[in-house]
């Protein structure tokens, strides 16, 4: 039974790895900050400028898109964009790379 559980866990982990979405397109922070303006930039403009990236679409019609900005030493800042149901950027935020501990 234990061996079966371990096998099944390994299978499940394999499935999870296979289905994992990419962490997001890599775009320099300066380009994101200059290009993406809340209340103005559209989803189509984001796609045209940076291509597809990791995103989540919600039943409400909102979408959250995330980009990775190189921050040196192999670290990345996150730039998250909230797109409203009309397809316009509603909010943006930047998450600094987490400090190494």
């Amino acid at each position, binding site marked *: 039974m234990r061996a079966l559980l371990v096998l*099944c*866990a390994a299978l499940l982990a394999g499935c999870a790895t296979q289905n994992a979405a990419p*962490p997001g397109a890599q775009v320099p922070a300066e380009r994101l900050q200059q290009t993406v303006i809340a209340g103005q930039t559209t989803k189509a403009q984001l796609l045209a400028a940076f291509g597809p990236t*990791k995103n989540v679409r919600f039943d409400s019609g909102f979408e*959250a898109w995330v980009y990775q900005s190189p921050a040196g030493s192999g670290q990345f800042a*996150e730039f*998250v964009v909230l797109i409203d149901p009309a397809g316009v950027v509603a909010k943006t*935020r930047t*998450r600094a790379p987490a400090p190494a501990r």
Partner: protein
Amino acid sequence: MSGLFAAAGLPAHAAGQSTVTVKSTRDPVDKSYRKMIRGMERFERERAFAPNASLRFQLLPRLPNVDMRGITLRVAGDTVSVPVPVDDNNFFVLPRNGQALQEDAAVLASRKTASMTWRARIETPGVPAGMRRLGDLRLECRVGKEAGLVSNSSPLFGWISDALDSPEGVCTSPDGNYLFFAEHPIFAVTLRAGERVETLPFSMLYAGGDQTPDMLPFCDCQVLLDRTYYVPLWDASWPDDTLVEFTYMVDPPAGVTP
């Protein structure tokens, strides 16, 4: 059994069986009263996470079309039936009843069981409005897992995940996957402990951000995806008094507490 005969178009007595009155039926997704009481006992044992907090349980939507208004709840055993008051926000306190324990009663709601999910709600007085306290969430995870509240479902793998996850595994591991739900759709979640302030990574929002439409029906976050977040329950560098702050997708009107 009589239902089986009825389904076959035969009255029970026609097959030489006596009629049995079934007062309640146990759906496999209904909550076990014994398990929920075990969750309450765990709350009492591990109050150090949240010494001044109180424990309630909450019903949450699991399917898009479920009507969450006017839900009634009862503890149902073979002979005992105890009504449980549910407030307007679908919170309730589970009463202790020795007879129900003895009869291995179920906790039944007036909705199809697969249409809702359940969570423990542990709140320390004095936490600023619209925020949560990390120690409260740590204890919610332990109580919720002990009480068997999470209503994930997978026809193929459900029994395996049930066998593999435990409160210790889920609530103390970086790979733990206990989902919390905010009051409104979230855009960011930030931890604050004294001078230390960190925003959670995108991967800790929206059930990891990896749920595809064909996976969502198996997650009890199905209709709450935009309110869903993980917190680093396992990370002891964040004290129990850490505050969890939410930035919502839609800002509340000025002067309104989120």
